[in-house]
């Protein structure tokens, strides 16, 4: 079984995002692999270690710094990397999930992958669209929010975690698309010796325009703004004053 893993380079989860010039500021901001993509890479590597998969290929779309993200994916255990080079912003402002799904469709046809593992959503765009779009384009079965993945003789047994409960789904037909949720596994950290070893693994660079895909955004982002700042609290002198304020100003007591 050949696995294709989607890896997205996003603003690091611990960074406080600022708005500058009408969009999110990306200059001098720490960027790293999307946490849900790390979970997808870890699952693919575990399938390879358990001998259910032969090859794991990591794909990343973005500027030339995406090769660092790909190196992290290779250090976690992927065999090869594909870097789709584009200067468009990949955080929903310019390159949007529909175009990304078309790019992935072309790569799946080129690589003849059986299983496509992607993260549930990107922490910058929070769309969760790429997996389902890709499944629709490939006419392939999809399981989103996968919390447990098992290989059995009929195919793939996947447990799906939704707000209303857990569903168990048997995937019988390949290629299939699986979107990884938080509780699927605990991703390994790519230590320095592994990153050094990963420098020898091949990374192929393709230009996004060369794939013959329409990259124009379907949705126009009109405005980007920061959430309103939290209002300051006031210090009250006594319990009576507190009750008085709660009754008259905040109107939460009768």
């Amino acid at each position, binding site marked *: 079984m050949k696995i294709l893993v989607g890896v997205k380079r996003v603003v690091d*989860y*611990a960074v406080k995002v600022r708005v500058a010039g009408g969009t999110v500021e990306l200059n001098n901001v720490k960027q*790293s692999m999307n*946490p849900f993509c790390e979970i997808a890479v870890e699952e693919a590597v575990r399938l390879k270690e358990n001998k259910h998969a032969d090859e794991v290929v990591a794909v990343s779309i973005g500027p030339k710094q995406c090769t660092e993200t790909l190196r992290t994916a290779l250090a976690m255990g992927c065999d090869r990397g594909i870097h789709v080079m584009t200067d468009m912003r990949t955080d929903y402002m310019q390159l949007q999930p529909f175009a990304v799904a078309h790019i992935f469709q072309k790569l799946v046809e080129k690589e003849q992958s059986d299983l496509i593992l992607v993260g*549930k*959503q990107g*922490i910058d765009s929070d769309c969760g669209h790429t997996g389902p779009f890709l499944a629709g384009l490939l006419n392939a079965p999809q399981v989103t929010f996968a919390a447990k993945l098992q290989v059995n003789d009929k195919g793939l047994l996947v447990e799906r*975690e939704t*707000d209303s409960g857990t569903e168990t789904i048997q995937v019988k037909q390949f290629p299939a698309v699986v979107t990884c949720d*938080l*509780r699927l596994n*605990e*991703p390994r*950290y790519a*230590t*320095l*010796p*592994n*990153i*050094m*070893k990963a420098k020898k693994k091949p990374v192929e660079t393709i230009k996004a325009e060369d794939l013959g895909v329409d990259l124009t955004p379907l949705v126009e982002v009109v405005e980007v703004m920061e*959430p*309103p700042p939290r*209002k300051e609290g006031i210090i009250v002198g006594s319990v009576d004053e507190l009750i008085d304020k709660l009754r008259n100003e905040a109107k939460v007591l009768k």
Partner: protein
Amino acid sequence: MFENYSRAIDSDESIDTILCSVTVSDYSIVGTTSGMMNPLVRDLYKRVIHVGRDYPTGLPHVRKVWKDSMRNRANCPACYTDPASSQCQEELFHAVNRGRFMVKEMIGVIKLKKYRAMKQRYDRTDETLEEAMDRVERLGHQQQSL
């Protein structure tokens, strides 16, 4: 002489298992006076910096704490008194092993922080009714202030 160093540096294994067969004469450990650093120590510091970039307290703090503790004379007193001895070797290996263990602990802290942040932001399955109502009410207050 250096192939054992590169094997110890390239892998995550404990140094003792790799280097136990090598004798003292294979190494030329120079003391601190001439300013040369043992390759294992340099490799450990590189690992610390790589992990420190993701560490919650930030890289400057990590660098300061690790430099202070690596320069601590108590880690390998033989380096200062008798650099070429086998006792200095042993003490250095013990110190670097302990350093690598601490790097693993730092990785554990990073993983835990990341999991907790993701769970708090994206996972609502364990939310109680009271927490859900608080969240909706806070959203309502935000909407009002807008």
